[in-house]
């Protein structure tokens, strides 16, 4: 069994008057797709934002490849790539310029920059629109730019937060394929979604959140148990 790439321990967070997380714990490992599941408002996005250091926990801790998110946030961000449903890009820059900007900010050195950017453009099959300004790209193409900028520094951990919620069937399929490919490369892939059917097809292990608490965790088969699918299991768990 590979060691945990991400360890979340008794995490608590209050946003305004809302207690978003109530002491959740889980581990995600390299070479697996880990599903963080639950309905809207369960605390999935807040958890991911704490893992990638955008938010600080009220209590509890997060370790990313041995780095604590509180004491070494820049080291954590260097090792994490995040893809969200928000596919905002710099409209007046080309797709390639968008990717290169994030590569530079992520510490990719000048000598490596072109090679890394070209490699990620090839990998995501973006050659046909790489030089186009982002304002003229389709949603699917923008999503590819968003993925490319998240992986251009070759992070060990990839987090996908509802990545397919604004995409059509074809673009969603490409994202799922990409997650599977990343698992094959030994990456730790954390997939946050409220679409349980997607999770069931992709994830090796899952944690289900409900109102800021973990209600189930284990392999996909363990959590499904004797139910027809994850959705039925979830409905019984949250009653």
């Amino acid at each position, binding site marked *: 069994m590979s060691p945990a790439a991400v360890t979340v321990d008794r995490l608590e967070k209050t946003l305004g008057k809302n207690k978003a997380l109530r002491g959740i714990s889980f581990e995600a490992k390299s070479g697996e797709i880990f599903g963080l599941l639950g309905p809207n408002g369960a605390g999935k996005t807040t958890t991911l934002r704490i893992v990638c250091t955008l938010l600080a926990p009220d209590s509890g801790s997060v370790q990313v490849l041995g780095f604590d998110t509180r004491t070494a946030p820049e080291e954590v961000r260097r090792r994490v790539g995040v893809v969200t449903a*928000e596919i905002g890009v710099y409209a007046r820059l080309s797709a390639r310029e968008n990717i290169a900007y994030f590569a530079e900010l992520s510490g990719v050195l000048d000598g490596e920059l072109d090679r890394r950017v070209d490699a990620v453009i090839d990998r995501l099959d973006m050659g046909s629109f790489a030089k186009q300004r982002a304002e003229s790209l389709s949603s699917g193409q923008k999503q590819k730019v*968003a993925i490319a900028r998240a992986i251009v520094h070759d992070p060990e951990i990839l987090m996908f937060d509802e990545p397919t919620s604004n995409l059509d069937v074809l673009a969603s399929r490409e994202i799922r394929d990409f997650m599977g490919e990343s698992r094959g490369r030994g990456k730790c892939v954390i997939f946050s979604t409220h679409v349980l059917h997607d999770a069931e097809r992709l994830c090796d292990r899952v944690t289900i959140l409900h109102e800021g608490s973990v209600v189930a965790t284990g392999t996909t088969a363990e959590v499904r148990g004797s139910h027809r699918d994850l959705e039925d299991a979830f409905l019984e768990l949250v009653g």
Partner: protein
Amino acid sequence: MNALGIVFRKELREILRDRRTLIAIGLAALATPAVLIVISQVSAKTATQTYTIGYSGDIPTGLDILLSATGLKLERVADPAAAAKQQVDLGAAFQPTEIDEYYDPTRQSAQIADTRLQTVLGEYNAAKAAAALREKGVDPAVLTPLPVKVHPLSSPVRAAGNAFLSFFLPYILITMVLTGGLSAALDASAGERERKTMEALLLTPAPRSRILLGKILAVSTISLVSAVAAIGSMLLALSQIPLLGTRVSLSPLAAAVMVWLAILLAGSFSSLTLALGTLAKNFRQGQAYSTPLYFITIFPASIILFIPDFNPNLAYYVIPILNAVLVLRDAIVQNSVAWPALGVTTASLVATGLICWFAALRLFTRETLLIRS
């Protein structure tokens, strides 16, 4: 290249591809000469324009020639008081021993006609009195027992030009430094949230202070370019268009002071507008937050217009923007720099810039920045 340079280069590239900003800079460069051309033509027209006096009674011999030579046209009317309300610029009823003058001070043409008439009548009365004294064998010099000989220490025309510059230049400088970079500042702050790129940006390992500093430098650069374009085109226009009877120019010292102040103001304004933009959820909200800045910045420049001889003590130079206006005015009018005033002004504007930068950084690193978006 470190994060500061990377962000600076990217922001500049985006700004230079933004039509809004480029149009604003271009318009500023064109608008100032256009305004000066209009002012020049209006003032030239006013100086040569003929005004009409509606009169009744008999005009003393010779006075009509003097009036015509001063651009005052005479037109006989039945009732000068009634005619002065609309029909003519000024009414005059010539009596054997006095003149009754009627004019409406709310009309600018009436004011100018009145000034001209008073000047002509003053000279006419003096000439008549002198002739009467001479007839009686008295030297007319008795009428001016203490004559004054005026010796201007500098060209009055040049002084008028400097007075014009001392108001107009600080006004243009402050307005352009503020507005030239405003669109870019809002785009780099509120725009990041609106187009949903803020989260991706903050996810990079680059220190947020350097990201912010890169944005401030890019916005400051555009502000400076806008101010230099507007002032450069204005000075070019002034060197070609005669205004106030002269071609106005800026001394090298005043130009150096102006550039120094522009750099300081650009740094402060960029930090301030980025802070306001960071507070806003979108570009439009950022514009609403920034609107009061126009009033705050224009007010100090207006002081010079209303109180041209405003010479405060050193403590006043602590007040940001007002201090820049005063230092630049002194450099233009006196062609010299009061170093203590410039020192206090520099310290004040640097401190203002640092406070604004610190506020912007605090806002830029708040969790609510992400939660609200």
